[in-house]
């Protein structure tokens, strides 16, 4: 059985429909990437899974249990943690406090703790007493990832971790992915950087205008197919 | 305007509705009846009507401030009190006739509103609300020190002033009533004029470009700024206009009462809490709301006034329930069920392609 699924998932912002029946499957130990142009609905998908947006119960399942209507805090307690788009660190909290708050709703022993996060991103240890928002963009992203890992999640959702970062910094951050997988988390990674997505993912979903337009393993997808799924077939 | 939807005209922008036209005719009839009322009504009915009309005017101005201007003041009693005291002051100290002195009450209220706004506009949101209250307290405490008008215990209008009041002699002879009743009738007529002018004036203001800008400021300050609406100037305008109207009303109320004290004239319960409940119960942000609200308020008061504190508790509970479950008030409930708008201020586009396509979908 898949670890996490969405089935015929829809989402609305007021009258505006942002998702039209999205089906996603994440298996234990797997990393999948969601790609798509701006406004395709990737963030909306993440918000629907994490409970920020709520739906019909069976639109999202975790180990077969319907969680589509559960609140964000309940879903987090089940072991689904999110690195939100734009990092969203808490400005009133120091770096270390930002990490610690990641365990508020779920205190599960596991690989990840303050020490192992500091091992993963040593720079954070140096800056531990700074306000979270006094860090560079890349460092803030590390805090956001560390904060989500602190609860030792079973599923880690990452929304555009590379957004606005320099290539070297992106590399630094992505070197953490194998370690995260190794520690036992399955991942859904939203990426606009297709190359990066292809490198880390076992499977890729491409979205356009609120629908999944293409899925497959990275090597099975041709450049043209991706191009069409991304921008629509050149009619 | 009624032929605006005619098919020969591609489209037209208008703000009237058929309900509003019927309401217009009904309003004219109502005004005539109101003016003629003293000819056949009892003195106590006239007093009740005076109370209803003056509370309605206060509610309309508070609604202009809070409902349209987003300025939630709980210090409007400052302007009621200062308007009333200014009137008493010039009558007692300068021997002016109280009726023209009412106008002065409005002017003095504006003079007070300028420094008040200067301080209170430094505070945001909820703190603005309490800030206005503090200023009202300051004015009350200062007024208590003003010995010429009775200090903390207050005073009455001089006998000659009330006896020789403008026009009362005519009223006495025409209606064959005593001086005190004639003063009630005069105050009542003034209240009718004030209420009609207030509702008409606010309706007019909201339909002007400035009024539309006001709604824009309330809904989204940033967006309003970006299209060139000067939010600060709008706030000042609304605040000063409301102060003027509230000051006039205060002076008029105390002309009828003929006796004043700082605690009564600056009472937060009488001049702000009641007014606020009237607006909330009726429906904030509409002209109809305060009208419905004042009627409900008066009925509740007539029913429950003997129970004193219970009456206020019931009023508070109703206010809370409305705010929690029907934040648009009774008028909001009525108008969302029926679609009726008596004072339409939004502009609607009818006719033309847009209209037809909307009807098809």
């Amino acid at each position: 059985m898949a670890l996490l699924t969405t089935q015929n998932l829809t989402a609305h912002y007021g009258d505006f429909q942002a998702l039209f029946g999205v089906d996603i499957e994440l298996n234990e130990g797997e990393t999948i990437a969601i790609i798509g142009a701006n406004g395709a609905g990737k963030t909306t998908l993440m918000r629907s899974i994490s409970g920020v947006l709520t739906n019909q119960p069976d639109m999202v399942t975790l180990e077969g249990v319907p969680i589509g209507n559960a609140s964000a805090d309940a879903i987090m307690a089940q072991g689904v943690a999110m690195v939100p788009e734009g990092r969203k660190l808490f400005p009133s909290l120091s770096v270390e406090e930002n990490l610690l708050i990641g365990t508020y709703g779920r205190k599960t022993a596991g690989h990840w703790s303050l020490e192992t996060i500091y091992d993963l991103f040593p720079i954070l240890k140096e800056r531990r007493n700074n306000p979270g928002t006094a860090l560079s963009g890349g460092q803030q992203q590390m805090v956001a990832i560390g904060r989500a890992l602190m609860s030792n999640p079973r599923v880690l959702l990452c929304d555009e971790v590379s957004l606005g970062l320099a290539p070297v910094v992106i590399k630094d951050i992505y070197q953490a992915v194998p370690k995260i997988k190794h520690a036992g988390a399955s991942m859904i990674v939203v990426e606009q950087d297709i190359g990066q997505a292809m490198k880390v993912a076992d499977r890729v979903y491409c979205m356009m205008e609120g629908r999944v337009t293409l899925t497959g393993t990275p090597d099975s997808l041709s450049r043209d197919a991706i191009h069409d799924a991304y921008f629509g077939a050149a009619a | 305007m009624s032929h605006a939807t005619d098919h020969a005209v591609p489209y037209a922008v208008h703000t009237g509705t058929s309900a509003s036209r019927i309401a217009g005719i009904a309003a004219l009839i109502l005004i005539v009846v109101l003016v003629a009322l003293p000819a056949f009504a009892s003195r106590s009915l006239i007093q009740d009507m005076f109370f209803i009309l003056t509370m309605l005017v206060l509610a309309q101005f508070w609604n202009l401030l809070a409902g349209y201007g987003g300025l939630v003041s709980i210090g409007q009693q400052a302007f009621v009190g200062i308007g009333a005291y200014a009137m008493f002051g010039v009558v007692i100290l300068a021997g002016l006739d109280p009726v023209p002195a009412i106008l002065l009450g409005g002017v003095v209220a504006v003079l007070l509103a300028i420094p008040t706004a200067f301080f209170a506009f430094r505070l945001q949101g909820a703190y603005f609300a309490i800030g206005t209250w503090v200023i009202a307290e300051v004015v009350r405490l200062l007024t208590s020190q003003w010995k010429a008008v009775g200090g903390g215990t207050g005073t009455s209008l001089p006998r000659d002033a009330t006896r020789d009041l403008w026009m009362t002699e005519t009223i006495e002879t025409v209606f064959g009533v005593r001086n005190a009743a004639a003063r009630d009738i005069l105050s009542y007529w003034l209240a009718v004029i004030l209420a009609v002018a207030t509702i008409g004036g606010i309706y007019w203001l909201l339909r002007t470009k400035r009024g539309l800008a006001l709604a824009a400021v309330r809904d989204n300050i940033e967006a309003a700024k970006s299209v060139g609406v000067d939010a600060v100037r709008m706030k000042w305008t609304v605040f000063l206009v409301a102060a003027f109207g509230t000051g006039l009303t205060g002076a008029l109320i105390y002309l009828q009462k003929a006796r004043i004290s700082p605690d009564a004239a600056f009472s937060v319960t009488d001049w702000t809490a009641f007014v606020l409940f009237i607006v909330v119960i009726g429906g904030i942000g509409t002209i109809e709301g305060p009208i419905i609200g004042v009627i409900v308020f008066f009925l509740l008061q007539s029913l429950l006034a003997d129970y004193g504190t219970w009456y206020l508790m019931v009023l508070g509970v109703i206010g809370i329930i409305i705010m929690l479950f029907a934040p648009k008030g009774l008028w909001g409930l009525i108008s969302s069920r029926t679609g009726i708008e008596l004072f339409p201020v939004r502009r609607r586009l009818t006719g033309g392609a847009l209209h037809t396509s909307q009807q098809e979908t």
Partner: protein
Amino acid sequence: MIWVDTIVQGILLGGLYALFAAGLSLVFGIMRLVNLAHGDLIVMGAYLILVFVSFTGLSPFIAAAIAMPLMFALGYGLQKVMLNRVLGDDILPPLLVTFGLSVVLQNAMLEGFSADSQRLPTGALSTASVELGSINVGVLPLLTFGSAVLVIVVLNQIFYRTELGRAFRATSDDATTASLMGIKPANIFAMATGIALIIVTIAALYLGMRANFDPNIGPARLIYAFEAVIIGGLGSLWGTLLGGIIIGVAQTVGAAINPEWQILAGHVALLIVLLIRPRGLFPRAVD
């Protein structure tokens, strides 16, 4: 010398005002909510203590300790069932709802306890005093001030040293992201209001022991509390203490010049601060 005495009395009075204000400051800092019934809740706390004292003959301090969990529960429930519904960008609903609550509480107390003024029994405490250098200071005012400092120290500890405090700050920064950390913002807000009402109970204890109270004095306590918060700068607890002290000193100095100027002088102090430092003495950097 008389002036030193006046100012010391003012500082100690400021402790009482800081107690009035600390709960208001806490709640505003966390959820940007101003509870217009805050003053009436203080008066209600005083009546609750009075009821316990008169039924059991216990000392007011013990009665207050019994009242605390009840007041906490009241605050928690109030926030959960009523105030959480009106939080949001529009400031009107919370203002109107809490204003309504204020009117209801005031009149309920008038109905239940009449307009007669009451006082908590203090025994010898109300007259006890100590020599501080050349001036005589009442033990009760000293105790009030000490309690205010203690309350602020404890609140700061909770805020900056505990997980709950972290959750308070995180939720106040961004409630949606906080919920992704497993925080339930509705419960966090309810906790905050519950704690605020514990502080309200402490304020009520000293209010009732130091002076007469009746159901109508709530709004004036709200105003003093509000003035202390504004002068101190929104969201700063030590600022709130300083704000309370400034109001207290202004009032005692005003009263020393002319007894009728006591309250007025406090208001004028606020207006002066607004004039020179519109954001208060210790404004928060992020707001």
